[in-house]
């Protein structure tokens, strides 16, 4: 099929919803920079449209190609993770960034895609009768745990947990026996218990700042000007928005810099403050629709790779926005996870657009089969 004709078959509603979300983002970035295209809005627009075109290009490429390169993507992703561990730029006490001259890459973000691809590939190739075989459960588990440990050592606990969550999710969708998840869940709870028991002893398993974050998460009022400051201020911004918001560019919390990271991780608070309940619910609905269209798309595909790929990537997208929103509302501890397509940032934008490129490719080639 002619690649240009293929474009007609992409999931147009999904594509439009992506565009709508991004427009929301531009609007907010323009506002938090005090009504200016600089320094965030312009680069964000450029990045978005370049990667938006990339989606079309990727969707025209056959899904079998993406399937074939999946193992290599995984190896490359892991290599980058190791590279960042040794050569990465240090920022905020963690090595997360790899300066590739042209682009500053956060390999842990990109790795989420390659892991989903690799797992989908693995289950696509694995005979169905071996899905729940203990050995074939351990292999994908290793594929998940090893990179997660590297990310955890950066240290970036949040992303490490998200990687594990997405990986387990793909395994769940792939049909691994339910007993494993029950067992896993129980052992996770036990681990959590041990973690908290380790606090203050010489075999403490987490860094002090992790524990402190958990403390302030549980009760932000303990330290309203210190670590709890972010949560307190962002809740004030959210709540003061009310039903209709304070008006575009009228949010005192964001315009006066009370909000931390207002252009990146906390941009949802600005939206909430300036557009109120309608704005936040509106964005939530758009996000839900994106997820819904992805699920429909997954159900419409005929091969296991496409199906697992779409649900896995969709889950990645879902974790982004649900964790971010829960975080700014104080339902989850503050972990550095951006609001997808809205927060300023190159790495997450590219990762998300790449995953949509893959989803669209799977959608376009849903009837091809292989």
């Amino acid at each position, binding site marked *: 099929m002619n690649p240009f004709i293929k474009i007609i078959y992409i999931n147009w509603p999904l594509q439009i919803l992506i565009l709508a979300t991004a427009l929301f983002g531009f609007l907010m970035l323009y506002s938090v920079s005090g009504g200016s295209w600089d320094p965030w809005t312009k680069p964000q627009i450029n990045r978005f449209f370049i990667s938006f075109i990339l989606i079309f290009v990727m969707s025209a490429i056959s899904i079998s190609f993406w399937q074939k390169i999946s193992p290599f993507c995984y190896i490359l992703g892991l290599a980058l993770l190791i590279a960042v561990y040794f050569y990465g730029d240090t920022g905020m006490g963690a090595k997360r960034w790899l300066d590739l001259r042209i682009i500053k890459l956060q390999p842990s973000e990109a790795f989420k895609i390659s892991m989903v691809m690799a797992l989908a590939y693995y289950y696509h190739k694995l005979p169905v009768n071996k899905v729940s075989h203990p050995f074939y459960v351990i292999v994908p588990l290793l594929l998940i745990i090893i990179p997660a440990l590297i990310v955890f050592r950066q240290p970036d606990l949040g992303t490490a947990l998200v990687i594990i969550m997405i990986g387990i999710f793909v395994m769940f*969708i792939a049909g691994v026996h339910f007993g494993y998840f029950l067992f896993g869940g129980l052992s996770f709870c036990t681990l959590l218990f041990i973690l908290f028991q380790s606090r203050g002893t010489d075999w403490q398993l987490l860094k002090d700042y992790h524990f402190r974050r958990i403390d302030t998460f549980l009760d932000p009022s303990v330290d309203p000007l210190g670590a709890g400051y972010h949560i307190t201020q962002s809740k*004030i911004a959210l709540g003061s928005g009310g039903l209709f918001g304070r008006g575009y560019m009228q949010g005192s919390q964001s315009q006066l810099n009370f909000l931390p990271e207002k252009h990146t991780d906390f941009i949802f608070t600005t939206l909430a403050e300036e557009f109120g309940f309608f704005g936040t619910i509106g964005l*939530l609905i758009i996000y839900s629709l994106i997820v819904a269209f992805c*699920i429909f798309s997954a159900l419409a595909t005929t091969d296991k790779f496409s199906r697992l790929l779409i649900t896995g990537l969709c889950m990645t997208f879902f974790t982004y926005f649900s964790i971010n929103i829960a975080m700014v509302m104080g339902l989850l501890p503050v972990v550095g996870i951006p609001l997808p397509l809205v927060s300023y940032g190159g790495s997450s934008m590219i990762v998300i657009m790449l995953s949509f490129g893959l989803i669209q490719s799977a959608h376009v080639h849903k009837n091809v089969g292989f």
Partner: protein
Amino acid sequence: MSKFKDTTLKSKIFRRVHRRIVLAGLLKASTVALLGWNIRKLQIEDSEDYKLLADANRVNLRLIPPSRGLIFDRLGTPIALNEQNYKIVFIREQAADPRKVLKKLASIIELDQKRQEKILQDMKKRSSFIPITVAENLTWKDFAHISVNLPSLPGIIPEVGLTRHYQEYESYAHIVGYVGPISDKDLKSEKPVDPVLQIPKFQIGKVGVEKKLETHLRGRAGVSKVEVNASGRVMRELSRTQGKSGENIHLTIATNLQKFASERLKGMSASSVLIDIKSGDILSLVSTPSYNPNNFVLGISQSDWNALLNDERKPLLNKATSGAYPPGSTFKMVVAAAALELGLIGLNDKIFCAGFYELGSRNFHCWLKGGHGKLTLQEAIQKSCDVYFYELARKVGVKRIGDMARRLGLGQAYNLPLTGLSKGFVPTKKWKKERFGTSWLVGDTLNVGIGQGFSLATPLQLAVMTARLASGKEVTPNIIKNSNKNPDNPKALSIKENTLVAIRKGMFDVLNEKDGTAFNFRTTNHNFLIAGKTGTSQVRRITREEREEGVIKNEDLPWKMRDHALFTCFAPFKNPKYALSVVVEHGGSGSKVAAPIARDIMLFQLYGGIPPVTAYPEKQQVEARKRLMDIEKKINSRTNINPNI
């Protein structure tokens, strides 16, 4: 494995995948619902609370300090002013490299390496948007120079603030006092706390009129409601309430007289008070040595402070109102008045002075070794005979002497807005019993009779006493213009006119009769004749042995041991207008040291300027001319010296 089985398994797994995708979708949907529910709670249910919190975050009240009331002299010459203080502040966040900016600044104004380091250190301690004062009290030239160079000095901001400045500071320091940065102690003693005091380094009155009339001078702060950002920087002003500047204060002091008197007393540890008898206005109140109150405004250095504190001549003390001295012979008028009022002695009754007064086995000596012979009261005042007043004091008794002393204004503090007002002291029998546990002796009364012993008076009290004797009215001193509600009509003292006339005549003779103790220091202008009384108060006790061997001359004693020289007078004799007292600490004899000073000051006031030499006896004219010209020259050279401009 059969193909069939495989297919069933495959379809089974396939259905399971399908089912799980749907299950996961439902889980996601419920997560979204949970998020939505939480958003609803925050944005709809609790919205009002959060709106209040957001406002509390955003709005900040800033105080605009009021400009302090000015202090003027009686003619409206400003004494305490608010001067524009050219200063520059530095906001770190506006400069890329503060070190570089400071270096550049040092090429424009004087800013040594040490000061630069100090500024950089101060900056590190504070938030980056807080302005740090780099230099204060800049000259206009430097200030302009910096303003022109601003584009190359990022972060530097020229500012104009108001700082207290004292004109004629040396002669006014003890009256006006000074302001200084508020201390924690000051804040604690203030109740209720004026919000303006919380401005860091806000200047409040510390001493003198500045302190006592603080509430009048301070004014009320304005309030500016500003929007601030998270780091506390002001973004814009929302509203502004104007404050009220402090009230201006007009003193009763006449600056030209004040300056003359301080110049005349310069070099001594002395004080003088000149009162307008009719109104009670204090026209001059001088204490020397003085200090520069301007040094206190921005906080005085420890070494300067120690120097002032350790000076044995006590420059910080207002000797005119805080210094209490034995009044010496100036107290004799009190004893005389009491005796005459009680009819214990007639105007023509005489008492014999043999040079000493016998009391049991003890002799009380007269200052004149051979004695004065027979004296009337008028002559006793004129010659300041001690024996006469021993006798008189014994007749009157300490209680009635004390009553008269209080009536004439001793032993009490006046309601003046000055700090450290001393009440002086009028002793009583009861006090001695309580204080020392011993009974009052006749000898004590004799000592009181000549102003020695326990009684103490301040120069201000002596001037008031003289004013009351000269007018027969209850003259009360005041230092704030128009503060006396009934200036022309003070209460009469209810002392018989005859009594007053006799005392005044005695005081007149002190200067104008040949044997008067201050005859040398009379004036020859018949319209301005001065009546007064000398006083020499002993600081040490003269033992019998010393008296036998010959009393050591004052000049041979260490400064601290020398007698205080006192003189109190009024003029013109026929129509008393002004009362004046002069006390020179450890100056020696009142007649030799204090009287000439008093004459110069009094004549200055009577003439309304430097007196002509013709007012002095012929023999003294050459010396007087030299002295007066010297003072005039010094006053002129000192006028309008402003160390800060």
